[in-house]
């Protein structure tokens, strides 16, 4: 069990999908203006990513590998991810229309979120077992959500402070993201051996 936990921690903190591997930056910068939207975006991405990495593993080991079609991996993964995202959008619109209206434009963005495809491909490359790749996907998504929420809170604070006009908005956002990844370097080389 603790081995599974360490995998989660490793995926979430040590090589955090956003701040260390620099994947999924467009929703990270785009949706992080308000804390609650960032949280719901993070949860939606977690839902999609976990499903996608599971589906990816099944696809890889049940279809692509036996038929020797590894070169189709990226294409088929994107197809699956797009389907999962479309399914998530329907679920969200059914569950809460205001949330759907708020997230509106950004839901399809998850399809193009390179973190989702990246993590699915990574877990295939590292030949994880099914449970392992599920854990890796979930861990990375947790890391993504954590950093999204922390970054959203930081930007909400910046929104009410007097940032010089030259830096207000996106520039200060990028600077803070950079400084945040500076902090995350502290987790570099963290291994619980």
């Amino acid at each position, binding site marked *: 069990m603790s081995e599974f936990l360490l995998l989660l921690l490793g995926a979430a903190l040590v090589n955090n999908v956003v701040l260390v591997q620099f994947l999924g930056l467009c929703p990270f910068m785009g949706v992080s203006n308000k804390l609650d939207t960032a949280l719901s975006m993070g949860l939606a991405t977690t839902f999609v990513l976990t499903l996608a990495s599971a589906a990816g593993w099944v696809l890889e080991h049940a279809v692509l590998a036996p038929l020797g079609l590894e070169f189709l991996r990226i294409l088929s993964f994107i197809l699956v991810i797009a389907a999962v995202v479309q399914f998530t959008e329907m679920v969200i619109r059914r569950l809460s229309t205001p949330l759907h209206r708020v997230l509106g434009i950004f839901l399809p963005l998850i399809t193009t979120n390179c973190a989702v495809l990246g993590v699915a491909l990574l877990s295939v490359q590292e030949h994880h077992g099914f449970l392992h790749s599920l854990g890796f996907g979930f861990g990375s998504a947790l890391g993504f959500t954590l950093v999204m929420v922390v970054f959203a809170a930081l930007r909400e604070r910046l*929104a*009410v*402070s*007097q940032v010089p006009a030259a830096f207000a908005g996106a520039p200060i956002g990028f600077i803070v993201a950079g400084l945040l990844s500076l902090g995350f370097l502290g987790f570099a080389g963290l291994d619980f051996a």
Partner: protein
Amino acid sequence: MWSFPRTLSFRGGVHPQPRKQTTRNLAIEPLPLPRRLYLPVQQHIGAPARPLVAAGDRVLKGQVVAAGDGAVSAAVHASTSGQVLAIEPHPAPHPSGLPLLTLVIAPDGADRWVDLPEPDHALSLSREEIARRVAAAGVVGMGGATFPAAVKLNLGTRHAIDTLILNGSECEPYLSCDDRLMREHPGEIIDGARILRQALGAERTLIVVEDNKPEALAALRERLYVADAIQAVAVPTRYPMGSERHIIRAVTGREIPAGQLGADVGVMVHNVATARAVHRAVRHHQPLVSRIVTVGGGAVARPANLEVPLGARVQDLLDHCGGASMAPARLLMGGPMMGQVIPHARVPVVKGSNGVIALTAAETRSADPGPCIRCGRCVAACPSGLTPLEMASRIRAGDLDGAAERGLADCVACGACAYVCPAHLPLVQYFQHARGALADRREQGQHQERIRRLAQRRRERQEAEARAKAEAAAQRKAERAARRQRKTAGKEHETEA
């Protein structure tokens, strides 16, 4: 179930230097009648009073010159006998210096009371009778809130009041008017307490005094008989102990739910000066025509506690106290924590002014506001458990909804946060501005709602008129057709005949 430790206190609060030394040992001295008295028609919360007299009328002391107008209002009485010179706008005791309809009275020096009924020492008066006399006397909350006292008594009928608190805490620095009142007239205050308890039917009556006024406590306890079942309670000195919500929380441990009043938790709070005014109103039928005002601050030559006829101008008080020894940095009506700066000394003393304080620059310790360094001292000081720095940063950024969401409505504007802020930020002014802007926004919303309804109704009326006209036209056409038809039928009849 919330269990509040009985610490006779509340969260947060600050300890400003009391600076009462200069005036707390000076006996109350009457202010000689000034040349003119300026009585505004609005000295209370609620609708302004309607003047009953006209320019040129002669009035006697205690005669009603303006009657209360509507449910929440208070009458205004002549503070002395004399002639009404004019009823015209004069500067109100308010930072904006905007005018307010004011009765200008020229005293004739006789100071002759209007004939009053015999004093009535009956022990048990009915609740309605007490409320009527208090209303007739125009008594309002003298602690500074100036809410009409009679309306509060009627409020007491709709809720079961089991505790009456007389607020003698006087936690504002510099002020000593309540302190002197408790030391010199404890009997009148206690009798006022009995009358109020009689009106409210409260089981417990507490006169609450901060423990930095031991002489006042002693004077009250000395005059209290065991039969009275009235206790004089000492509470730790802390600002804002005088705030109604916090004195109830400190003394009874009950916390008024947000948006409700003291009566909702069965407690009624009145200032000690209000109790004395109730005593005079009910026992001697004397209306509220004068009040005790502390004149203090570093810029006043000879600080004093004065019994001032309502309507006297601040300039008269300052002149009586030897004038301002230097130009005051800030001239305040009320205490330095919640009092308001007045634009000039030509404003009248009204029912709610408990102090005229002329502060020197050194005493204000004011400095240009620096940046907020988020030190959190305002959060620790806030007695209402809010986060002033978050509210202020949102207001500065123009996000009024964000400030409202952080608890702007629960702020009692006591000033504890701005007092401790190391960056000297005018936090209270941020909150006052935001509340005003939100009030404007609500009013504009209601105004638009009204406009939509009116436009809607006008469209419906026009459509109805159009329909009615169309029907009438159609009906007339039908009749004409019928008539023509009968005529042609008639003609055919003739041709056949």
